[in-house]
């Protein structure tokens, strides 16, 4: 009996920092990575893609043939020349790829045998300005995102809090406990850096997280979340802890990237090294790998992916980019997913019982096998249609926001409505699950990104 009281007390006590998310969905996919970590071979090519940095208008600082060091600026933001994107390796610029209208597509770097890092100094400055300038100069600033809009943070802003995401709820996401293993010192130093940037640093971790790096992290307010994806999305954490109002600014960063910042302040060097999960049914052996942001993935894929027609995703199946077999790992990517491309048409697929078809609804009879895992392909399973079904998104959307109404206001480019309906509180990734289960196959993430861009252009 006393134990019940004790537990009740515990729950009441914890309730302020423990948040149970009810709505959401964990996709039942095959190809979950094991906890084993492997070194991947050092690649012979790197590339930076400006399109990966939301809101950044790139201006090149290098030309083909230039030699760069790791940490040296490759391009910067035209509208804010303090924001630099720096090279993850030392080497030679071998190509600058441009797309239509001379849009900057990629800057390709051939790495040196031995990586030569710029030393940004080992001292830990006390003044906020010096800390910011060190982050900006090294390029590590690009790891900090801001809300609203979900773009690179603006160093001139004063955020009301910094949210560190120490969770992994999306499919095959890298568990921070594995990714941060051995980087305790860096992580702690990184949190210290964030603390000097804002009055409030919040670390969100899973309710059943056991890794001491996270559970005993010093210098951050600890919050625990449990529930299906998107319980690990930063927007969910913000909405539960300190919702964004109009005019508020919040910065966000992932726990892995905090360690990169910490390493910068301890060693003076910018190491864009991460331990990332490589999952999906296309992997010979799904597990973790040591990689560096921007690296060529060709060798990795040749070695680790089964033969066949696969989609190579830098990121998760929900939000990642299709990079192709010869692609480069995203600068900010924290995982790799390989799933089969959809190939065949499906004879009368919409009429038959569909025992083997995955659906969040129960419209196919696969719901009779609730524990089955699926090898989902990239098939759309239908065609794009007008919004017809209502109340569908709400089931996987744990925000106090009306998703359909917000999407319609975005569609109509009604800025006032967007604000009223809470567009500041979300970023495209929050609509990823809605997009997956959408009957009408609407490109929701693209719509939300457009809406945020329209709003950004209007407000700035």
């Amino acid at each position, binding site marked *: 009996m006393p134990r019940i009281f004790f537990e009740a007390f515990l729950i009441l006590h914890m309730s302020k920092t423990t948040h149970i998310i009810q709505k959401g969905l964990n996709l039942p996919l095959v190809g979950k990575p094991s906890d084993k970590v492997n070194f991947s071979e050092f690649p012979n090519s790197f590339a930076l893609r400006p399109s990966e940095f939301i809101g950044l208008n790139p201006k090149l600082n290098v030309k083909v043939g230039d030699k760069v060091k790791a940490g040296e600026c490759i391009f910067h933001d035209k509208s804010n020349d303090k924001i630099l994107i720096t090279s993850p390796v030392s080497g030679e610029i071998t190509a600058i790829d441009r797309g239509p209208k001379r849009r900057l597509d990629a800057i390709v770097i051939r790495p040196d045998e031995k990586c030569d890092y710029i030393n940004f100094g080992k001292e830990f400055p006390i003044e906020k300005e010096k800390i910011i300038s060190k982050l900006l100069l090294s390029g590590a600033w690009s790891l900090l995102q801001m809300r609203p809009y979900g773009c690179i943070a603006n160093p001139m802003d004063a955020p009301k809090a910094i949210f560190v995401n120490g969770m992994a709820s999306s499919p095959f996401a890298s568990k921070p406990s594995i990714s941060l293993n051995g980087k305790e010192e860096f992580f702690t130093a990184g949190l210290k850096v964030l603390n000097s940037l804002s009055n409030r640093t919040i670390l969100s971790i899973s309710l059943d997280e056991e890794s001491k790096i996270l559970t005993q992290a010093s210098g951050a307010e600890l919050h625990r979340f449990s529930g299906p994806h998107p319980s690990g999305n930063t927007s969910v954490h913000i909405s539960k802890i300190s919702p964004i109002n109009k005019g508020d600014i919040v910065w966000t960063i992932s726990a892995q990237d905090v360690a990169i910042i910490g390493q910068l302040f301890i060693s003076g060097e910018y190491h864009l090294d991460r331990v990332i999960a490589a999952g999906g049914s296309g992997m010979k052996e799904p597990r973790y790998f040591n990689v560096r942001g921007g690296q060529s993935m060709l060798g990795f894929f040749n070695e680790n992916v089964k033969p066949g027609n696969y989609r190579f995703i830098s990121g998760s199946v929900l939000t990642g980019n*299709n990079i192709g077999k010869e692609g480069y790992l995203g600068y900010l990517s924290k995982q790799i997913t390989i799933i089969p491309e959809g190939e065949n048409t*499906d004879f009368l697929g919409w009429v038959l019982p569909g025992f083997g078809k995955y659906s969040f609804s129960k*419209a196919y009879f696969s719901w009779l096998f609730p524990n089955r895992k699926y090898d989902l392909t990239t098939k*759309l399973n239908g065609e794009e*249609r007008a919004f017809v079904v209502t109340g569908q998104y709400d089931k996987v959307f744990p925000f106090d926001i009306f998703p359909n*109404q917000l999407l319609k206001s975005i569609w109509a480019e009604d800025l006032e409505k967007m604000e009223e309906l809470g567009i500041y509180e979300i970023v495209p990734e929050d609509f990823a699950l809605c997009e997956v289960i959408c009957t009408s196959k609407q490109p929701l993430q693209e719509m939300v990104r457009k809406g945020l861009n329209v709003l950004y252009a209007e407000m700035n």
Partner: protein
Amino acid sequence: MKFLQNILDSARPAVTTGKLKPLYPLYNAIETMLFVPNHNANSGAHVRDAIDLKRTMITVIFALIPALIFGMFNAGYQHYKAIGLLNDAIGWLQFFTVDNFIFGAIKVVPMIVVTYIAGLGVEIYFAYINKHAVNEGFLVSGLLIPMTMPVDMPLWMVAISTIFAVLIGKEVFGGTGMNILNPALTARAFAFFAYPSFMSGDKVWINTTTVEGEALVDGFSGATALGQYASTGETTYSAWDAFLGIIPGSIGETSTLLILLGGIYLIATGIGSWKIMLSSLFGAIAISLIFNLVAPNMISPEQQGFLSIPFYFHLVFGSWAFSTVFMATDPVSASHTEKGKWIYGFLIGFLGIMIRVFNPAYPEGMMLAILFMNVMAPLIDHYVVEGNVKKRLKRLIISAK
């Protein structure tokens, strides 16, 4: 399946670049119905749910089919019973007979075919001029329209009502997903007001033409239970018969049991909103109980009789069940918010029974109640959404202090 694919492939050049270009939406509709296309996700999430609009619509059709088949048997049964060929005592043995089914099928199948041709014709024309694919919404509307009609409805009236509904009810608002009114009920409302002598009264619900082709002698009344209530305050049908569905009425509306099964299927698959169905039930019960309370104060004995019937009579007679399960739950014309769905459904049940009881000109009120609530749904949603907006504004003001 290969040969079907080959036929489609050989026809493709003619409809994409050749002379038959206007037929492309039709071709595309047939092709995608035979083979779910292998389009891949190229923006956003890389994996997608197996559900699409076609599956959603076919699920509703699955739910409708038992009531439709039953309707065919019932049309034949009511006919043969009216012309005196059936012995009342034998009951069910005389219901599920081949004769009954064939009679019903001969009446109903042409109505379904005409509805689909008329409706899809308009849809395909608009798909062609607006350059989009044919939407699947009409798959359900095309089945609902004949199911809400009396069995003897002339086919040209069915066609005109359907064309009116698709044109004025749907396409002028921008097509599927944009309409304010439920298209199937728009068709029924059009038929009801344009051809009242074929849509209401005592004579339309049962085909009474004898084998020799003559109309049955006068004096036979084929009034529906609600028609009887409106005129006399009582009915000759039992609630049990009505629950099973062996009473006169529109083709698909009579069997509460099979509609209930369809409703359970829609709820189980998550396609139909249980909130709307349940709240419509609450609404119908609420107004019935209120009527029971005030019944003794009514002046005319007919009104007293109609007002004092127990609530479950209202659920099994008329089209309350059919309307609630298949009409009110149309997601486009219903309330779009979850809170709104409770209000929307409740008022449909409430107003439907109220119109039914108080207006002798309209022995059934569900059609008007749903169309009225279709118009009101955006208003309900507005206030629900406004609540969310206000909450956000309040948070802003508190944080500013």
